[in-house]
């Protein structure tokens, strides 16, 4: 009986040691689930999901702290793609997050702009053209409608307009 206990304990210890060694040898992984998830998102950094960018949202999904239905610009297509990737069922878009931001574009009232450049610094996709002390304007084809440029403007010259077609 004693030999039995010793053998079993020895076996357990040996196996655990093996596992620890292997774990140490392997280290961390290069890619992650978050990479694959991020590729499926629209990547327009609009922050409508509540996370400060597409990468943080992807990581939140990967670590199971966010649902897959929080991206309005991606819409049903993105939800379906994410569900497909993660082997889950698609779910309807979270209504509380509002409409997709890409349907709107920012517009600068050029006559009011004072050239402080705060909006251009904040735009995540560099859709604002202008240099300090000069008038700024929105490159509409690049604008993702994220509205991050509206708060910093000291003269409140930026508004959101809907895109035509």
């Amino acid at each position, binding site marked *: 009986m004693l030999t039995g206990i010793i053998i079993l304990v020895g076996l357990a210890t040996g196996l655990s040691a093996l596992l620890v060694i292997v774990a140490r040898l392997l280290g961390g992984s290069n890619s992650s689930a978050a990479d694959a998830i991020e590729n499926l*998102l*629209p*990547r*327009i*950094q609009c922050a409508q999901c509540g996370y400060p960018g597409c990468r943080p949202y992807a990581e939140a999904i990967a670590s199971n702290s966010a649902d897959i239905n929080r991206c309005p610009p991606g819409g*049903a*297509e993105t939800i*379906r*793609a994410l569900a497909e990737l993660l082997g889950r069922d698609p779910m309807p878009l979270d209504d509380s997050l509002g409409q997709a931001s*890409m349907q709107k574009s920012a517009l600068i009232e050029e006559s009011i702009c004072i050239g402080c450049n705060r909006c251009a610094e904040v*735009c*995540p*996709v*560099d*859709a604002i053209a202008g240099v300090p002390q000069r008038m700024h304007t929105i490159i509409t084809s*690049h604008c*993702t409608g994220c509205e991050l440029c509206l708060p910093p403007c000291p003269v409140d010259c930026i508004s959101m307009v809907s895109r035509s077609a």
Partner: protein
Amino acid sequence: MLKFTPKRRLTGGVRLPANKTESTGKSIRRGLIPPRLIVSTRQQRGPAAKPIVEIGQGVLRGETIARAEKSDGTDVHAPTSGKIIAIENYESPLLSKVALELCIVIETDGADLAIQKRGPIEFAATREDRIRQIASAGIVGLGGAAYSTAEKMRGEPQIDCKLLIINGAECEPYISCDDMLMRESPEQILDGAAILQQLVGAPECIIAIERDKPQAIDAITLAADKLDLDGLRIAELPSIYPSGGERQLVEVLAGVEVPSEKYPSDFGFLCQNVGTAYAVHRFFRDGEPLSSRVVTVTGAAVAEPRNVEAMIGTPIADLIDACGGYSREAARLIHGGSMMGFELSEDSLAVTKATNCVVAAAPDEVKSENREWPCIRCGECSMVCPARLQPQDLVIAARESNAQALTELALSECIECGCCDVVCPSHIPLTQEFRKAKPLVQSLEELQAFSDASDQRFRLHEERRQDATIAAERQRDHIKRALSHEERRAEEIRAAVQRARQRKSETDGS
């Protein structure tokens, strides 16, 4: 004339009852001048032409009445002499639907006076100028798709045209206008083909005709022998729908599969309808711009079905009158053939350059509306698809609006031929669903492109921000070091002054 053996057999396709013998019994009726012509200013796939005439103005046959505004447009000409009585919007059938277009209404005078003594038109000096001549002649593809022939010939400037295909296949049921044109005017067609061949510099030319048109094949062969044309060969195709499709012809004759986002001209192939070749001949040899075309008028509700050389703008009602009028109540009026044609609500609409056929179908000719049953996954649809698609999977994705799946299943390759509809035992309206779903794929592709571009811009933005942060830190370090350097110097100076004072006080003291 040499025969050309097709390199491949057509993928898929269906054999359909032709329904062409009714309209090929008589020769083409010519010289029909209706009392009014409603000539649309949009006679091609692309921009409309701008009218250059005014109400009340008298026009002669061949006179330009609307000019193309851009280089990819074509001019529109008066088909006969008369007076302009109106320039306003009318419903006009073109490109798979009826749309409101600006039309020029001509009241004909019956005299059919031409604008000038027409004769051969001299070829312009450069290739580009000659192509522009073709656009000014109003020549568009007469196979039904109405692409500007000039624009098609321009194609990819860097790619040499290696094969000109003259399309005399006419695979769709009911349509026989190309057949009759080949029987009656084979030499003119081949002359037009030779002109085209010379214009694009193609070393080879193949005229493709389906095997169920023996008279046309004989006529063309005889004419080719008489004209003694080099580099021209005839290919006989089995009568399978849709072997007359442009991409299908390129695949069958040259063995090359052209993907949907590219054109045959990107691969060095140019495909023109026999009617287009005829129009080219008429323009360069007789000086006649394109203002009329052969239209098949058929269907069990027409008394004497036949082909009519109709002036552009002839109301369809006049066409049917010229063929003996209605023999019975027409259940449906179709513009085009039974597969890719679309329905017209009334016969007051006028012929455009895309009108190859008008079918007045009697009630017993029209297939009764069948109830749709669930898909039994028999696979017949994918067996007949000429584009090698899987309609049974596509229709599920289309109904779910799953744009990702539609892209993976290559919906954009669908040529909307309708073969899958014909064979489906459950009567599922497949082609209709695909037509509705195509815009979804388009918008997904656009979104994908926008996403990738935004991602790129974001990464560059982040890089710049990081660089700026690093630069700012380096600046701070530099300043810190400079400041500490200054402090050390000040420290050393103080120490030295202290030492000096000390020594001074020592020497003073002692």
